[in-house]
């Protein structure tokens, strides 16, 4: 130790906790997951020794009955569901965050708290709450029946609609907060300058407001889209298992079907798809934001 230079020692001391944290909570579990994915599933549903690609082959859809697109449907459904929920969250959160940021200071705190407080309750309990609201013979279901959205005896749950509502409700705060931060820091002089140069309201928004909120929007999108992609509690409860999502597929291999290698392989695919998603988002942000790094 004494042989090391002082700044080297300083560097070691300051980075060690971070490195330790990443090794224990990221590297080791990921290594375990990767190792698990290449094991075989034993005769009684326990992971066993010979290393194989069976789990990935099975995940790709090859089985006793030949090839099936079932898991592919599951993946596409999950991506689509995540994109749809994120889009709806943006539509609601963007004006909401703007509105909150324009309020007197003491009201802002109250309004932000109102956005955040519901997320202090357990996800399961909130989902069960929605189950009761969407059951047949409730005010909401009756309204849906009258509009012709559903049959009287069916109610609105379980359904894809209920899942999307549950996701939007769950993730709204994660979009509102970063957007609010962006709006609060908004440089109003830019907006005024644009107005002074006779920009139309649309042009003001496009050139003066939107670029400034883009980092917040991107951060919110990451915070919403990624968990929504992997979500399984909400889809399980509000979807009733009618449409399996990738998160449910993985969870079920661990909890119900006891096929851990397949579950691990599914989890790896989830990570890969998420990384691809991040890359796409980053490139998109760069293009829209005029070559500025708006994300990562």
């Amino acid at each position, binding site marked *: 130790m004494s042989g090391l230079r002082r700044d080297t020692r300083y560097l070691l001391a300051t980075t060690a906790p971070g490195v330790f944290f990443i090794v224990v909570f990221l590297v080791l579990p990921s290594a375990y997951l990767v190792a698990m994915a290449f094991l075989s599933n034993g005769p*009684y549903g326990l992971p066993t020794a010979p290393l194989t690609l069976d789990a990935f082959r099975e995940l790709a859809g090859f089985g006793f009955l030949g090839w099936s697109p079932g898991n592919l*449907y599951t993946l596409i459904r999950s991506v689509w569901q995540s994109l749809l929920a994120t889009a709806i969250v943006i539509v609601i959160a963007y004006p909401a965050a703007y509105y909150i940021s324009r309020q007197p200071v003491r009201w802002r705190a109250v309004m932000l708290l109102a956005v955040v407080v519901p997320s202090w309750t357990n996800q399961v309990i909130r989902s069960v709450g929605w189950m009761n609201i969407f059951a047949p013979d409730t005010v909401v279901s009756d309204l849906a029946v009258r509009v012709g959205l559903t049959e009287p005896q069916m109610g609105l749950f379980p359904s894809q609609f209920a899942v999307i509502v549950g996701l939007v409700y769950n993730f709204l705060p994660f979009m509102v907060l970063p957007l609010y931060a962006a709006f609060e820091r908004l440089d109003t002089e830019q907006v005024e300058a644009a107005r002074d140069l006779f920009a139309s309201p649309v042009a003001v928004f496009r050139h003066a407001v939107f670029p400034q909120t883009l980092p917040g929007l991107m951060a919110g999108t990451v915070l919403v889209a990624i968990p929504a992609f992997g979500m399984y509690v909400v889809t399980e409860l509000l979807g009733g298992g009618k449409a399996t999502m990738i998160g449910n597929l993985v969870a079920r291999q661990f*909890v119900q079907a006891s096929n851990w290698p397949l579950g691990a392989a599914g989890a790896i695919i989830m990570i890969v798809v998420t990384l691809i998603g991040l890359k796409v988002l980053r490139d998109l942000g760069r293009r829209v934001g005029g070559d500025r790094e708006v994300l990562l």
Partner: protein
Amino acid sequence: MTHPTLRAGLLAATLATGAGSASAQFEGETLYLFNWSQYMDPAIIEQFEDRYGVDVVRNYFNSNGELFAKLQAGGDSQYDVIVPSNYYVPRLINSDLVQPLDHTQLPNLDNLMESFVDPAFDPGNTYSVAYQWGTTGLIYDESALGDVPNSWAVLFDPAVNPDAPFAVPEDAQVSLGAACAYQGEGYDCTSRSALEAAAREVLDAKQRDNFAGFVQGTPILQQLVRGSVAAGMTFNGDYLFYKSEDPEGFEDIRFVIPEEGAERWVDNMMIPANAPNPELAHAFINYILEAEIGAQLSNWNYYSSPNAAALPMLDEVLQAPPIMPTDEQMERLTFIPSLQGDSLEFLQQIWREVESR
């Protein structure tokens, strides 16, 4: 639900018998019980705690798959007594997740009924002792479906139930068993062609507009009362348990054993391989096998007792259908097979197909 006089009498009796025996042996120790929910009379636990001066910590699982996964993830050293169903017993044994029972510590084994001694799924009761038994049948709301045939057609035939919401359990073997029975292959079908056809049957059902999701046997009872589901599958004892709590809500709800056959199951007490306290676990199993406790248990949870000595003390409701099936119904009931290797893999694969489409 409660039987104050019986309970008071039993309490006195257990206190009297317990006082003299080796009760000090376990003083201050803890028993970890892993059981299905709504399956154990809290008074039985209290009496056990009082008699032995121990604490009982209870945890619950909702399906055999969940139990298996928990044990696999290290739970085999966290629980002292588990209660899996017959078709999971061989899998647990072959996976080395449970330990053999020491029959010298279980003198009350003699109380077991003839038909539960030496079961096919665990010859010689080497690893398991019956806890309770019951049936899984069809449940439906007559006010929503009207007069329907006593058949799995209630779930699988759109002509019988064109628009009322229905559900099937997420337990692959149970749902496919019902579909197999409906197709005339028997509830305990194992051939690939039969299972594949059954999977298609469930898939067809799943793709109908009035399919309301996968719902397990216990939660579906609440959904039936609330009206979000009108038909599904459940267990005879849970049905009676909830019915006795809410007679009005269950007025139009019927539980039947369909003509095509249904499942009969036995849940068994077993000790995980690395249980923290196997001695106390044996004491607990022996305690449950006592005649009075066996009767008290069934009288509380509405399931059938495998305990011959307990029979005279059972409530009348337990001596009649749906708890005690008639001889004619008994012929239609089958145990579902314990699967392993390729057959298990096959079942899981086709079930994944059902879920993902």
